[in-house]
């Protein structure tokens, strides 16, 4: 109770003085902590590609990074309500999102990938998803991608908060769709009987969303500048190599 009250008072005073402190305030970054290998936790330590890139950006910008983890379905709400400044969770640039937010330059180029249980001979690519049940993460844009397919009405889409790769391995759904990079990462490193089915079917670019306000635009410009430096000096590429064995930060 008491700490709650103090927290609230603290928050009020912070809020009141917010405009003055804008420069020195840490960049508040939201992520799910549940998207291997981009953001996940091991022994209470937040890790992953997103964390490494964000830490490098922070260093370049001379800002502290404050990580806020929440279920993916809560992240945009936190951004919308001003509790975080941006989301580092492989956020794909879409027309819909562009209506509400402005985006930094892309820092990951990827494609949508169908993944099935090992030995599945029926589903060998996106064209085989007709009449099948397909899992996607709740709030991710793979659902929208699937719905753009001409035979979308014959696909049963199941949305997951987490654990969709397990349900696919258990045969509860016929396939899941995820970005190619993390899908191959899962198959390579984790003891689940899964395999990639066919080539990617839609290129996607991922970036950081910001509020379309003066402060948001300033932050985006700051991040873009730092991204360019990291791209030029090879930092982005080496972080990508470390996690994926390939450079996903180039088109």
């Amino acid at each position: 109770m008491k700490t709650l009250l103090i927290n609230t008072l603290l928050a009020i005073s912070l809020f009141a003085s917010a405009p003055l402190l804008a420069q020195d305030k840490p960049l508040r970054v939201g992520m799910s902590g549940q998207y291997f290998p981009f953001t996940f936790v091991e022994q209470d330590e937040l890790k992953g590609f997103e964390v490494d890139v964000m830490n490098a950006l922070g260093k370049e910008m001379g800002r502290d990074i404050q990580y806020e983890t929440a279920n993916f379905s809560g992240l945009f709400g936190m951004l919308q309500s001003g509790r975080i400044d941006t989301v580092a969770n492989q956020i794909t640039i879409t027309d819909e999102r562009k209506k509400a937010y402005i985006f930094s330059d892309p820092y990951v180029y990827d494609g949508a990938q169908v993944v099935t249980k090992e030995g599945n001979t029926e589903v060998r690519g996106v064209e085989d998803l007709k009449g099948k049940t397909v899992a996607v993460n709740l709030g991710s844009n793979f659902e929208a991608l699937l719905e753009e397919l001409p035979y979308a009405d014959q696909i049963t889409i199941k949305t997951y908060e987490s654990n969709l790769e397990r349900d696919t391995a258990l045969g509860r759904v016929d396939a899941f769709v995820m970005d190619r990079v993390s899908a191959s990462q899962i198959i390579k490193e984790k003891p689940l009987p899964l395999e990639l089915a066919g080539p990617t079917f839609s290129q996607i670019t991922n970036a950081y969303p910001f509020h379309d306000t003066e402060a948001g635009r300033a932050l985006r410009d700051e991040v873009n500048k730092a991204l360019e430096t990291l791209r030029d000096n090879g930092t982005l590429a080496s972080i990508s190599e470390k996690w994926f064995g390939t450079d996903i930060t180039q088109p």
Partner: protein
Amino acid sequence: MDVLNVEYMLGLVPVLLRYLPLTLQLAGIGMVLALFLACLFAVVRVLRIPVLNQLTIVFISFFRGTPLLVQLFLFYYGLPQLFSALTVIDGVTATVMGLTMHFSAYMAESIRAAIVGVDRSQTEAALSIGMTNGQLMRRIVLPQATRVALPTLMNYFIDMIKATSLAFTLGVTELMGATQKEAAGSFLYFEAFIVAAIMYWIVVELLSKLQNYLETRLNKAYNR
């Protein structure tokens, strides 16, 4: 995953234990506030206090009639959209608010039923010796209603502990949020969630023990 990875599970115990206090704090504070609110609502309903009674009925109907997650979203994301100053409501506060309102609506009804269930002639006896309404409630009605309501209230408390797992959607890493993130890192879902399940289970078992103890004490007056 043919064999249970016991080593991983043991390693996870101290990590997850760090998040248990927050889970208990959310539920504990929520329960105290919800009980307080529920007693107020119940008294308003029993005494049919005009205006307040109608407001209480609408409040109870809304918070019983909508999912807790929806309420949490409304407090956490919705209110700041309407009044930007309300961004100060952090995830912990919003969770406690949601748990309090949601469960007080349920508890108010069971407390009301327990109050109404106290033998009316005892109420008259208390009034006949010159007690005020407040004294009557405090000394005669509520102690007896407590005994009747205790098992139900305990069930709500247990429900509330489990409902704290929704807090991770508001960015509050409690026991369930920590477990989900660890599981995502190791892909050892079964191991991670079984550790969390056992922790919840132990807490609930301890509470059941407390409940038995309280029930025995409160039933003292009713054994022949």
